[in-house]
């Protein structure tokens, strides 16, 4: 099984990372490397778009946890989008689905980002 990882800058300091395929014991370094590069830029937010991810193991979860840990120090955020049922199941088992960090779609996330931005301006 393979993993491909695409990333793009959604707005300044906000990055979308889209892993595709299987995030497992074999492939997690591919995502980790990408995440580490982005963490080096001190981003405000990393968005993991899981739409095309169909498998995750604990090693994959660790990459997400590591990103969260790193961004927490700088008051950045990690959110996840479009979790497929089998991915959601793993996060549910380990009780790692806080509602404020999970979004059903890009639209839902955009609404949240808009609100956050307004709060910052005010």
């Amino acid at each position: 099984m393979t993993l491909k990882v695409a990333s793009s800058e959604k707005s300044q300091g906000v990055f979308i990372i889209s892993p595709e395929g299987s995030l497992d014991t074999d492939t997690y370094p591919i995502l980790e490397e990408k995440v580490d590069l982005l963490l080096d830029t001190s981003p405000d937010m990393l968005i993991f778009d899981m739409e095309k991810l169909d498998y995750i193991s604990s090693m994959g979860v660790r990459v997400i946890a590591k990103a969260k840990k790193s961004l927490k120090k700088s008051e950045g955020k990690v959110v996840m989008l479009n979790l497929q049922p089998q991915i959601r199941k793993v996060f549910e088992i380990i009780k790692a689905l806080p509602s404020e960090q999970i979004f059903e779609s890009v639209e839902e996330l955009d609404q949240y980002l808009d609100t956050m931005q307004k709060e910052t301006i005010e």
Partner: protein
Amino acid sequence: MGMISKQLVLKNAISEMRVLLNTAKEFCKENSISGNVTRDIHLALEEIFSNIVFYGFRDQDEHQIAISLSLSNNTLVLEINDDGIPFNPLESKAPDLEIPLEERETGGMGIHIACELVDEIEYFREQNKNILIMKKNEIFI
């Protein structure tokens, strides 16, 4: 119905994972086991096997890990034997699930996931071997 089963013996190398997971997938397919169950046992086997390879041995020697998949009625039975250090997953320290993911210690998560994905787990230590038996029920739904 006779016992349908598949045995394999792997080395304690992470490169053996592919053989294990492909064998498990084929076994499920040949026996018309449902997609959900196939996914669950795939992940459970990945977590258990990687844990044995990464943490099971104190020496650098080559060891054998024996795995059997068998089917009886509506239950899939996975048995994993290794001669590594004694490790009972049922008594291993579970991660603290009440604190945020990023604050947790990293150990124990894979074992917890594996345990939750199957219906029954038994562990024995016999003749210096870890014997782990995991059962998954209702495998055709």
